[in-house]
């Protein structure tokens, strides 16, 4: 009971502590590619600390949804965080949900953020909500097919079991269907974390923003929660990719402090590499027009479908 509780609290602390750092690293690397010095990688921490000290200015049109949404969304993301293996596959609460449940918890978080954006009655909010849900709808079929490809390969949608099995397979885990599913999920991760070419996280131009348009009415402490929630979601999506496709080095159960520290170190390394990849993709592409996005996500859909078909072919139906 006590070790389980410690493990859960530790996982929450790691998620909350790491997620601003990952955002900071991505920003720093983007700055490097743009031949700028860029802010320190710890800037997101300072931003959140600053926002937490400020008052929240609230629109006069809003209802309780606007106040409740950041809390509900954040809670949904953290709950998902307890279902995803981070550095250790033995999750005390892993029985509570699988990969599909994680996807739906993220959907719950998105749903409330979008509702809140409509609450203030601004056209930016409506535009953001409409586009966010549109992108989410386009992502969903590809996401489900890649989940199927992975789940068929391992025989389960339980995330701990997936990581455990694949890390036990050694380099055999690098099968063609895994690689194809990885490419599909990478495209999905770009869309889900709101990065270029789908969305531009650093814009406030009304015609191009999606996520930023949704949270335009938030300020101060509420904005701090919204921002931290978005960063935590980004970290969790990176963790999903890391531990489904590159599970090596993850600890399987509690086996001494040294082993855990090593596993944690490997995890951070993997996440930083994914963050660098994302930064490279972001700087090397331009933002796509909203109505060209179905093409991008069809590519992802095709990759996930190929992953599935190649699994069926390789494993001989």
């Amino acid at each position, binding site marked *: 009971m006590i070790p389980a509780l410690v493990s859960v609290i530790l996982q929450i602390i790691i998620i909350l502590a790491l997620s601003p750092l990952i955002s900071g690293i991505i920003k720093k690397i983007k700055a490097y590619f743009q031949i700028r010095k860029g802010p320190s990688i710890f800037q997101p921490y300072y931003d959140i600390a600053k926002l*937490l000290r400020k*008052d929240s*200015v*609230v*629109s*006069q*049109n809003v*209802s309780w*949804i606007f106040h409740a949404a950041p*809390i509900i969304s954040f*809670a949904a993301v*953290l*709950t998902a965080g*307890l279902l995803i293996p981070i550095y250790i596959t033995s999750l005390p*609460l892993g*029985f*509570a*949900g*699988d990969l*599909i*449940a994680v996807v*739906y*918890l993220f*959907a*719950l978080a998105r*749903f409330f953020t*979008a*509702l809140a954006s*409509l609450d*203030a*009655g*601004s*056209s930016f909010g*409506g*535009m953001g*909500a*409409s586009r966010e*849900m*549109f992108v989410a*709808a*386009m992502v969903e*079929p*590809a996401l*489900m*097919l890649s989940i*199927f490809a992975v*789940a068929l390969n391992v*025989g*389960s*949608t*339980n995330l*701990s079991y997936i990581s455990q099995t694949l890390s036990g397979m050694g380099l055999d885990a690098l099968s063609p269907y895994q690689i194809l599913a990885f490419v599909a999920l990478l495209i999905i991760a770009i869309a889900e974390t709101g990065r270029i070419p789908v969305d531009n996280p650093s814009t406030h131009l009304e015609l191009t923003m999606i996520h930023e348009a949704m949270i335009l*009415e938030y300020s101060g*402490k509420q904005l701090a*929660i919204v921002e931290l929630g978005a960063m935590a979601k980004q970290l969790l999506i990176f963790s999903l990719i890391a531990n489904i496709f590159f599970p090596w080095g993850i600890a399987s159960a509690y086996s001494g402090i040294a082993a855990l520290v090593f596993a944690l170190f490997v995890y951070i390394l993997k996440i930083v590499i994914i963050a660098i990849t994302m930064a490279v993709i972001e700087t090397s592409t331009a933002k796509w027009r*909203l*109505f060209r996005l179905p093409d991008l996500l069809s590519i992802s*859909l095709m990759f996930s479908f190929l992953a*599935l078909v190649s699994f069926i072919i390789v494993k001989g*139906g």
Partner: protein
Amino acid sequence: MSMNYLFFGMFVFYLVGATSAVILNKKDRLCSYTSFMSAAIAALLGIIFSISVIFGDTFSYDLSGGSYLKFGFFIDRLSAFFILVISISVLAVSIYSTGYVREYFGKKNIGYLGFLYNIFILSMVFVASADNAVMFLIVWELMSVVSYFLVVYEHEKPETRKAGFIYIVMTHIGTGFIIMSFLIFVGTSGSYSFGTFAEAGKTMTPLLKDIAFIFALIGFGTKAGIVPLHIWLPYAHPAAPSNVSALMSGVMIKIAIFMLIRVFFVFLGASQSWWGYVVLALGTMSAILGILYAVVESDIKRMLAFSSIENIGIILIGIGASMIFFADGKPILSTLAAMAALYHLLNHSIFKGLLFMGAGSILFSTHTKNIEELGGLIKKMPKSAILVLIGVLSISALPPFSGFISEWLTFQSLLLGFNLKETFPMIILSISAAILALTGALAAFCFLKFFGIGFLALPRTKHAEHAKESNTPMLIGMGIFASLSILLGIFPFYVLPILERITASFIGNLDSFTFSSFATVAIPSSTISLSTPAILALMFIFMLLLFGILFLINRKKQPVYETWGCGQPVSTSRNEYTATAFSKPVQIWFKSLYRPAREIDVTYTTSPLLKESFKFESRIEQVIEQYLYEPVVDFVIIRSRKARRIQTGSIHAYLGYIFGTLVILFMFVIAGGSP
């Protein structure tokens, strides 16, 4: 014996409701209370009755000992489950109705509505319990005709009369196919009793079985609203009074699903796997097309009707998968898929009933069902808003609400297709899952639009501005459904063993497997599990912590200011996003399906620079209606014109026709054709 009392007590109370409505039809208020409350009591008896059948023995009762036609009731666990679904819905909807019909006081005849309402429910219960094909067809027809009268209750509106016409035509086409399907069974078994149909199904030739399958699928599929037989549904459900729409969408179309399960599994033994693929494909198509039309709809009740098509599709995906597994000799997987389908069926009857009642409340207090004219209702009707939000979250399949559980189970049963070890089913089931995922996301899009545009921000019109909270009976009715939506989401492990008993009655008993353990739903022989209580508890803890932290660091009152409008000093409802704009991205994405047409009409004053008026109109096409039905309708009309020549209007001619027909029939009998 007590079962007899319960069963016939239920009938008596529905009949009391119907007759008291007729007798008291001059006294609106009294009439509404007696007729709807007596339906509610009957529903309570129905709930007790069906639960005791599910946990006890099958119930049967013979009405007559005639040798040729034996009328009787036969209720096994499957029928009992549907009586349970009917009764739960009727209980909540009846309480809601006592409040809702106040809208009609002094304007419409309440006695007429109360009478039809009770008879409609009674006919649905009869359909679920009939043990004889002839009796079944009589009560089925009764259900169709009574529901037609309910659809045209507001018959002074021309669009309602059109809706009723489309409904009655489609439903009779369906009944025609049902009769043909039943006659195939009768031809083999020599009896009209359903008990003998299962025996007949075993001895029939494969070709006859296939024909019976197709006819039953078309016949009952019409009632269920499967694409492409769905066209009546988006007309009829919005036209009916909202409490009746809640029952039609929530329950009546499920009765067709009940008969589909009965014909496919019990009568035909689900022996061909291609039947399963057909059902799965039709289910997938209904799900995606239903939700695609729902997304761009701005009439709330029409949107809900399209969404019913979607949900029937999701239920059929489960049933199709179950049939595929069953034909392949995998009873455990088949049970799981069937449980997913039945769970979604139960959930849909509840959250769709809730949303239709919510639409009724909106209509009641704003007199409009157009989302574009609403807005800000969360402040005017706060209690209804919370109840509708629960329905919205359930139908969007968000955890931990009920829709999530059944969609999760459906995904898991599709995923289990890899146990079949064949390429074709694996690919088909995966594609179906991908489309189901898209459907789920679009459902969230659709209902986010409904709640976000309809309930949040500022009221867009006077209608919405003067909205008032619904009255108490309406809130109680919706509250029952809202709490059930939550309970079915949090406690699936109590529901699944019940569903397992029900599926056992048509798939077979499974002794060695359990689908649920303490507080968790687990897929047999795998590591997959789901525990909504744990998810809910975690979310609750996190929300409490966050709320506490925010409360501690936020002692001051929050400053209130205008919504950001690019520095413009006014923020009015005209700045808000509209429902049409909200769904525009989806409309552009699927423009080859919608074939949107727009019309812009500008009139100028004397100067071409000054516009006097500006009219914008945007329409989408109903592809199936336009390209599948209209040519058939045109053809029938042209042929009918030709056939008009024999309609002389002279009574001698008609007597001649009758005589001629009789002569031909006599010749047929004498020549040796069997009667």
